[in-house]
């Protein structure tokens, strides 16, 4: 194959894998918005915690990478329950600005708390898959990136089944459509809040555990994560999980191409430029339903 074409394929491949990371981050964000109509600015912090918990579970408990990742995911899911209990559930009847600011306060708390506890210096999550290489025709992908892609796809399928098939999933969908109505028909809104935050934070942590080994981690990485998450979620349509999938992959590929051909520095700006164009064309994103009146 021609050199140019190989390069292009490699970049698209990298973009898809990065995109899957974004999908994992954005799924939890879109879930919380779709079900509870909350914009959670602290979502990125749970991603950060996922990565750090994996690091410390491996280092302090001597766990292997996979077990450490699982422990981290579960641990952060529990933190999600606590976050809901103290930062979101009490504000369920308040103005959306109040809830948003509460999540912003939580984000600041976790970032700065993280800096204090974990230290500001970057860390590196060790993974046995980090250096293994999988050749796919003319392009190469690390095993870790294959893992991200595979787990990401699996998680989306599981989440889909959870929402469509389980009783809890049905309650979540009912709450998404009409919280007051759902409460009247016997949906336990409090449990819906708890489970939604547990799942969303767990997903963010899983993303952190998976992506940790491919880059340095530091306590302020959550801001990066939540910004990517927002771009994806708005691109795909707030509250839409298929939207998060497509949006994440699009963002990953566009960024990879732009980073390769234009300039890395503008990558963040490019993501935002895309959503500005998309929102002007479709105010509710690619897959978004109209906003409730």
């Amino acid at each position, binding site marked *: 194959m021609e050199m140019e074409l190989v390069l292009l394929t490699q970049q698209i491949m990298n973009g898809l894998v990065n995109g899957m990371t974004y999908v994992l981050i954005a799924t939890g964000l879109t879930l919380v*918005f779709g079900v509870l109509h909350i*914009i959670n600015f602290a979502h990125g912090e749970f991603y950060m915690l996922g990565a750090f918990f994996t690091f410390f579970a491996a280092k302090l408990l001597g766990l292997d990478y996979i077990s450490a990742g699982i422990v981290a995911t579960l641990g952060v899911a529990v933190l999600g329950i606590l976050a809901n209990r103290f*930062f979101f559930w*009490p*504000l369920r009847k*308040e*103005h*959306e*600005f*109040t809830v*948003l*600011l*509460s999540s*912003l*306060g*939580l984000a*600041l*708390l976790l970032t*700065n*708390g993280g*800096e*204090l506890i974990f230290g500001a210096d970057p860390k590196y999550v060790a993974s046995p898959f980090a250096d293994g290489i999988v050749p796919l025709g003319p392009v190469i992908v690390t095993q870790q990136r294959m893992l991200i892609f595979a787990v990401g796809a699996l998680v989306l399928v599981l989440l889909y089944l959870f929402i469509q098939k389980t009783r809890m999933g049905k309650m979540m969908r009912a709450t998404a459509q009409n919280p007051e109505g759902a409460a009247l028909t016997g949906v336990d809104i409090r449990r819906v809040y708890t489970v939604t935050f547990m799942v969303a934070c767990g997903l963010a942590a899983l993303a952190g555990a998976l992506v940790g080994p491919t880059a340095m981690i530091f306590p302020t990485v959550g*801001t990066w994560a939540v*910004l990517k998450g*927002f*771009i994806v*979620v*708005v691109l795909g349509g*707030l509250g839409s999980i298929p939207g998060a999938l497509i949006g994440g992959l699009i963002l990953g590929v566009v960024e990879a191409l732009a980073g390769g051909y234009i*300039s890395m*520095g*503008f990558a*963040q*700006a490019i*993501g*935002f*430029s895309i*959503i*500005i164009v998309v*929102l*002007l064309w479709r*105010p*509710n*994103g690619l897959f978004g339903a109209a*906003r409730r009146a």
Partner: protein
Amino acid sequence: MMARFLPILAVAAALVLPLATSNTYFHHLLVLWMLYSLLALSLNIIVGYIGELSFGHAAFFGIGAYTAAILGMNFGFPGFPGLLMAGIVAGAFGFVIGYVALRIEGPQFVILTLGFGSIIFTTTNYWVDLTRGPMGISNIAPLGVGAGFELSSALDYYYLSLLLVVAFAYACHALMLSRTGRAFIAVRENAQLAASLGVDVFRTKLLAFVVATAVAGVAGAIFAHYLTVITPEVMSLNYMVAILIMVIVGGRGTIAGPILGALIYVGLLELLRATGALRMVIFAALLTVSVIFLPGGLVSLWRRFADRSTVRTARQAQVEAGE
């Protein structure tokens, strides 16, 4: 009665406040308080009066600051006309961005403004030819009229920004007692009903957005002249969030709220300086606690107190509603 004299008392207190000490660091904090007050009051027009949450406001503060700095550096533009230009340029950006973003509302608007802010921040960082990039622009001339008269001390800047804060606060007060202000509030409370009463919702929001961004630009320009150095940092997410915190912790939709919020922000960060690394953690915790327990902001404490201590007459209620 109280409500009448309180603003006058507050202004009088603000006038004599710096005389309490000759400590220049204290004066420096006062300048920051006033500039942030101006900035927070301007954001309050968007957040408090038309009810949309903008995460891009720091970008307009930055645009104003850079306009003043670049005009001075490249064209030898004098200070005070530079302030005006900064307001016009920031307002023009506000017009274009508002024109695009205000077609969308709610959460999408929040993220869209975050996006615009982020693009402006990135551009400022990378357009080195114009902005000198992350190093920023330094040696910005102090504000002055010709060569003879220059604002040289923190006190000078304090009184200038105090003047602007008082003027803008009065303008906001007048706004709430005007037909235009009633349209703002109508749009915030129920846009569909507002439209059915003849209010052009989009134009009303755009007017609010342009005024808010222009004032933020002026505040930014004074900030640049005062510090004599400006970096893209003022447009970073931290600043976006900080202004929002001032408005909401103080009390959105009120005039005292954002000014109080700015005071809390500057004062608290200063008081916590001694706690070292814990500073931001404590700050974030206090912020969150205040948001959760006082959703209406600090000024709502006063209203609770006033409700309990006096029997309100109809006239008073009207006065309060107007403010």
